[in-house]
């Protein structure tokens, strides 16, 4: 495997806080999951890879060049950042066209590429609506579209399906897998094992700024099953959702959120839950879904202690 992205003894600290500590790794074509609880150093890893931060020590190379201070790499690299931040007054199409023009395309090609990218994330119908009026899931998808629009060889995706409903989550997972099959280098960060597992089997486990393990996701899979898994769902009709979910055999408990919009489901079999959730989610109008990271945190505690 030829390395597209290389970290050589790279460290990064903010004042006295070490965010990434002496990391050496090489990532090549295909999908690689960057898995770790919040605060583990995933975002710092991606910011170093995307040249947003300079390493305090060591080297970070993207496509053979130092990631920091080499703007030309962004002809071939796309970043989907975690922050839910946009120029709210722009439409989805204006947002993409504006950024594509900064990538050096002429106006006609910008429009064409913007349409293609919006089509890939199923936002073509909403292309002329202002981003300020988009739902959380649509905002996630338009953010992904700007990373895809110039067809980069390398994609850095920071929590790309966070907040998406199950249908679009599945669509994005399939898109990431396809990009990996096409030979692109895709690095996806997440704190949810099942999310990463759906996209790839190759993972980097990161915890407290260190790479704890690299390899096949199945090896930590068994550990995961020993811990109850929590999924939070936001729906138009939480009662209908609860009725559909409570009958599933692997559900341990259900909790309604304070304002009645959220339902928290605890399960011992997350795979089965995700598998059977799609139909129930559609009927109850699920608009958002996320998994708090306590599940993964417990696995990491186990690994570190072991």
């Amino acid at each position, binding site marked *: 495997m030829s390395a597209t992205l290389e970290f050589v003894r790279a460290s990064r600290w*903010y004042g006295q806080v070490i965010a990434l500590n002496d990391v050496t790794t090489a990532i090549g074509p295909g999908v690689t999951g960057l898995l770790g609880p919040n605060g583990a150093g995933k975002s710092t890893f991606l910011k170093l890879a995307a040249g*947003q931060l300079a390493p305090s020590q060591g080297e970070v190379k993207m496509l053979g060049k130092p990631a920091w201070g080499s703007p030309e*790499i*962004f*002809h071939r690299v796309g970043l989907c950042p975690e*922050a839910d*931040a946009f120029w709210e007054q722009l439409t989805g199409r204006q947002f993409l066209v504006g*950024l594509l023009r*900064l990538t050096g395309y002429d106006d006609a090609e910008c429009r064409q590429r913007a349409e293609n990218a919006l089509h890939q994330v199923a936002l073509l119908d909403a292309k002329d609506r202002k981003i300020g009026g988009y739902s959380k899931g649509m905002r996630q998808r338009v953010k992904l579209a700007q990373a895809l629009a110039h067809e980069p060889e390398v994609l850095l995706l920071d929590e790309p399906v966070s907040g998406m409903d199950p249908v679009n989550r599945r669509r994005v997972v399939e898109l990431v897998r396809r990009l990996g099959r096409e030979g692109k280098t895709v690095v996806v960060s997440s704190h949810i094992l099942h999310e990463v597992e759906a996209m790839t089997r190759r993972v980097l486990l990161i915890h407290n700024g260190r790479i704890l393990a690299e390899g096949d996701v199945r090896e930590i899979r068994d550990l995961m099953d020993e811990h109850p898994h929590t999924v939070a769902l936001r729906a138009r009709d939480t009662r209908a959702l609860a009725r559909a979910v409570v009958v599933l055999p692997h559900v341990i408990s259900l909790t309604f959120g304070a304002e009645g919009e959220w339902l928290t489901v605890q399960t011992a079999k997350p795979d089965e839950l995700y598998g059977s959730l799609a139909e129930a989610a559609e009927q109850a109008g699920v608009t958002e879904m996320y998994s708090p990271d306590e599940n993964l945190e417990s696995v990491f505690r186990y690994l570190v202690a072991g």
Partner: protein
Amino acid sequence: MSERDTSRPVPFARAVRAMFDLTLEGMVWSRRSVLMAFLLGLPIVFAIVYRTVLAAHLPPRVTPFDFYGGIVVFYYLRFVVPLAALFYATALVADEVDGKTLTYLLTRPVRRESILAGKFAAYVATTLSLSLPAVVVTFFVLMTARGRAGLGGAVPDLLRDLGVLALALLAYGALFTLMGVLLKRPVIPGLLFLFIWEFMANLPGYLPRFTLTAYLRSLIRHRPAEEGISEIFGQVLPTALCLEVLGGAVLVCLAAAAWIFSTREYVMDQ
């Protein structure tokens, strides 16, 4: 699909143009522009009030041209133009940092200097298009208040005023762009600069030469000092010196801002 040279950043001029267009869209239709359009356009209301109410009651020696000159010097040059520069230019980068949208710009194959240049160009275009028409309308409303006699002779002064105000927007804009990339919270230091530091322009001796106001005011031919309204504007600096200092300030501030912006890390909190 077009062939692009992907081994280099996008050419500077092309990147500046793209950044200019992207910034202009958000800048023109912002709440900041509504407020500044109001403040910059307010003298038109003063002029209409003067024309309809005051002109008949003021002694003949207070001419419409005096009134216009006072508006240009005291309102535009000393107050609202620097304020517009402060609010727009300090926000060029700070807004992107606060809104966490800077990441989108910094992950494009463009030199960071071109991002700043495009944004500064959009600032100049926006502030010029808000301020200069208001000055022109104010001028004509006032100068035709007592007939059209003398209007033609005053037009060169109008053109000169427009040039000086444009220069003021460039000079203050460059300085506040520098403050915007240098400081995390640039507005308060900017206000202190405008209303305390720049006050030195009214002091005797050499101190006024450390202010932008002294050079800009010296370029206004019909400043009130010539009419004897105020003795506090003691110094009139040579035009060539004013242009050199102001031009130098623009270049130095923009170069420093571009250097800082291109070498600085911007950490967007999640």
